[in-house]
């Protein structure tokens, strides 16, 4: 423990990352380059998120780590352990008690409140990446707000599939200015970005970019007037807690084609069950 500085990163690196974060907060949705460090974690496992968390975490924080909505999957467990060892701060699985949440692929079902920080891990920060291969050109497109090509992509989706087939990383316009890739959260979570009372930070380690959605910022999912943005919905409740209007995971339960749909957010599901809620398959 004493071999490491608090939260692993040295103080100069934290200062550099905090500067990038401040800039990101000042220009909502703008991708700020930063000097991403080697972390004791493979790229793609949340090196960007870990660096952002390490730079903003303090001794008074309560940390929660989510991977695909769950608190008990490999990525969540190892990152939580990492910060337990390098900071000694208390951790929790409860969304409402955490002050700092690092997440991969989900925004919790429990509404975030003012004062909380949600850190999201981002694999590819550039929303125009698969439409325009040149980095210099995408930066120019951001600078000049030339985002028409993203609508070309949505047009293609509607033409081929009758609806926008993009279900995650659904592009959003932040503060009516910057086009942003909201990390690979399902589009179900996109409305939670809009006017969020919590600070949302996005870190991409391999691509060396940080961006942010400050509290109470307008975040609009792109759409057409005659094909408005819609989120996924399920025609059944969570099999375990009976919740409706939440994001459900499909879980294969045997090798005879049996499956059930349960909350992706394990904390939300467990707390509902503890309060006595029960779904069709609930124990």
């Amino acid at each position, binding site marked *: 423990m004493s071999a490491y500085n608090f939260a692993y990163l040295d103080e100069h690196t934290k200062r550099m990352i905090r500067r990038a974060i401040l800039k990101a907060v000042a220009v909502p949705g703008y991708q700020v380059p930063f000097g991403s460090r080697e972390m004791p974690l493979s790229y793609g496992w949340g090196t960007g998120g870990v660096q952002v968390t390490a730079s903003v975490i303090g001794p008074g924080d309560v940390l929660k780590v989510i991977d695909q909505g769950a608190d008990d999957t490999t990525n969540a467990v190892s990152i939580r352990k990492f910060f337990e060892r390098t900071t000694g701060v208390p951790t929790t699985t409860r969304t409402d008690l955490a002050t700092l949440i690092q997440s991969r692929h989900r925004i919790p079902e429990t509404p975030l409140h003012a004062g909380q920080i949600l850190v999201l891990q981002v694999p590819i920060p550039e929303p125009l990446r698969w439409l325009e291969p040149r980095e210099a050109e995408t930066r120019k497109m951001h600078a*000049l707000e030339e985002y*028409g*090509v993203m609508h*070309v992509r949505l047009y293609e989706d509607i*033409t081929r599939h009758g609806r926008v087939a993009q279900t995650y990383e659904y592009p959003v316009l932040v503060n009516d200015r910057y086009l942003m890739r909201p990390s690979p959260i399902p589009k179900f979570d996109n409305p939670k970005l809009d006017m969020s009372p919590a600070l949302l930070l996005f870190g991409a380690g391999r691509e060396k970019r940080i961006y942010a959605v400050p509290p109470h910022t307008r975040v609009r999912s792109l*759409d057409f007037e005659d094909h408005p943005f819609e989120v996924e919905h399920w025609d059944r409740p969570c099999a375990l807690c009976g919740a409706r209007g939440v994001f459900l995971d499909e879980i294969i339960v045997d090798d005879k084609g049996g499956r059930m749909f349960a909350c992706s957010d394990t904390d939300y599901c467990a707390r509902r069950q503890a309060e006595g809620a029960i779904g069709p398959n609930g124990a």
Partner: protein
Amino acid sequence: MSLGDDRPLLSVRRLVKRYGPQVACLDVGFDLWLGEVLGVVGESGSGKTTVLDCLSGRVAADGGRVEYATAVGDVVDVRRLDEPRRRRLLRTEWGVVHQNPRDGLRMGVTAGANVGERLMALGARHYGGIRDAALSWLTQVEIAADRVDDLPETFSGGMQQRLQIARNLVTRPRLVLMDEPTGGLDVSVQARLLDLLRGFVADLGLSAIIVTHDLAVARLLAHRLLVMRAGEVVESGLTDQVLDDPQHPYSQLLVSSVLHP
């Protein structure tokens, strides 16, 4: 700008582009008036395409003035225009048709999206409206409406070229720059494309600059001609005049090189 103004749509003076010691174009100058088609002819390597690229800003010229009279009536020096305005001008009042349709089309998306792209770039956000515009323009360039959802890859060369034209004309540009629009097409397909272009020039009052090495194309489409050689304009004048009574030795050589079947 109304036709009554005695100001050309585009006025180019002393345009220079060098690649190191190599001169790509030297002191090229001309005026283009509204509704006029200017042909630029010359052999390969004479600097025709460089002139076009310098106008569209794809290549930065080393010197000269390119003054354009915009739709709202002010005159801008395109070379000194800031980048947002220049790019906007290229998307709205100008169009560029490339020799190779792959340079001008988005090959990975359907014909409808190709035509709709400029509309969406200008803020169109109604899917049905964009699609209607795409269908209308496909019909106008003689592409069957049921091909609207096909990828350009499935189109023939002539169709791709016409799709490229539709994609440019959808925002009603006033000036279209074309680089060898009929290059690589067989003669009957060329003839159809030329007919189509002539129709658009007449009906929409388009102005165009057409770079070509094909004197027959120049004769059919262009009102006036510039003959270029080694980066310089050696002769200019009315198309018939230049082609029927060439004055410069190089123009004479060029005209006499063409086989008449």
